[in-house]
């Protein structure tokens, strides 16, 4: 995993935000871990899904930065399967994602947009 500069996002974190933004535009307000991994695989035309450790570490980091918020799915909606953790972009997360898209940082992101150093 690339070394992080203070106050910046890793390419994977930017990719997550950009993917979440596109899912949000497709009326999917919330997303879960596997759904996100699958969407990222399709958008990047990759053959493999993002590894569990990499994905959930990045999601935790984005939540910590205040760019994502999460909650557990209602038990009634789970219909017998394990409950999902549902994520959604915060206002700040959407702004960072839009900036990344504007800078062409989606998909195989190379740039690391600056974010607030501390969660709000």
């Amino acid at each position, binding site marked *: *995993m690339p070394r992080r500069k203070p106050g910046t996002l890793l390419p994977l974190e930017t990719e997550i935000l950009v993917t979440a933004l596109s899912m949000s535009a497709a009326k999917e307000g919330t997303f*879960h*871990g*596997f*759904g996100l*991994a*699958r969407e990222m695989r399709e958008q990047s035309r990759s053959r*493999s*899904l*993002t*590894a*569990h*450790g*990499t*994905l*959930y*570490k990045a999601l*935790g*980091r984005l*939540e*910590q930065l*205040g760019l994502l*918020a999460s909650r*557990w799915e209602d038990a009634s909606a789970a219909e017998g*399967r*394990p*409950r*999902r*953790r549902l994520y959604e972009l915060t206002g700040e997360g959407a702004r960072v994602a839009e900036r990344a898209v504007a800078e062409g940082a989606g998909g195989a992101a190379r740039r690391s947009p600056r974010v607030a150093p*501390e*969660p*709000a």
Partner: protein
Amino acid sequence: MRPERTAQLVAAWARLYTRGLPSSLARRRIAEIEADLHDQIAAERARGAGDRGIALSVLSRMVRGFAADVSWRGGAAAASTVYRLATAVAIGSVLFIFWLMGAVGIIGVEGDPADLMFFGVFAVGIAGAVIARTRPRGAPRALGMARALVAMALAQALVGAVALAAGKHEAAISSVFEILGLTGMFMALFLGSAWLFRQAARRRFSSEEE
């Protein structure tokens, strides 16, 4: 090779690397991985993938994430330790003040009503902690606690200033030096705890607790 068997292996690995972490943090990570595994197996089967291919994909995701899992655990464990230390310093400081109030009196002689002002400091801390509890667990809550402790330090400074303004330093048993010294010491304890809470937040104290 059945995907369910490899999913069990991944879940076992998640239980292993979350062992010893705060239970809420560990439970969340394990539950999230289990839901992911279930969703992946169901989705891959629905699109017609064979069991062997699904199992290998599940296994591959686990192996490629090893380093991130270990790194995440390291950060979470360190942050958790710092958070507990910050809590211990805060509670210890309050108990210390409470003991001093009862044992020898802090401002003036034992039983001086001026000591009741310290209950105001405690009240500020309780209010701050209650507000912090409304924030998401992890870094946001740790930062909330840091602010609560800074507020306690400011309230403590106010207590010292009021004591001096009320002329408590003129009592035979008190002095300006003593009031300023004790005020400074209590403020240092609260600010020290606040600094530790901030460190906990900075060390990627995961907001994944639930």
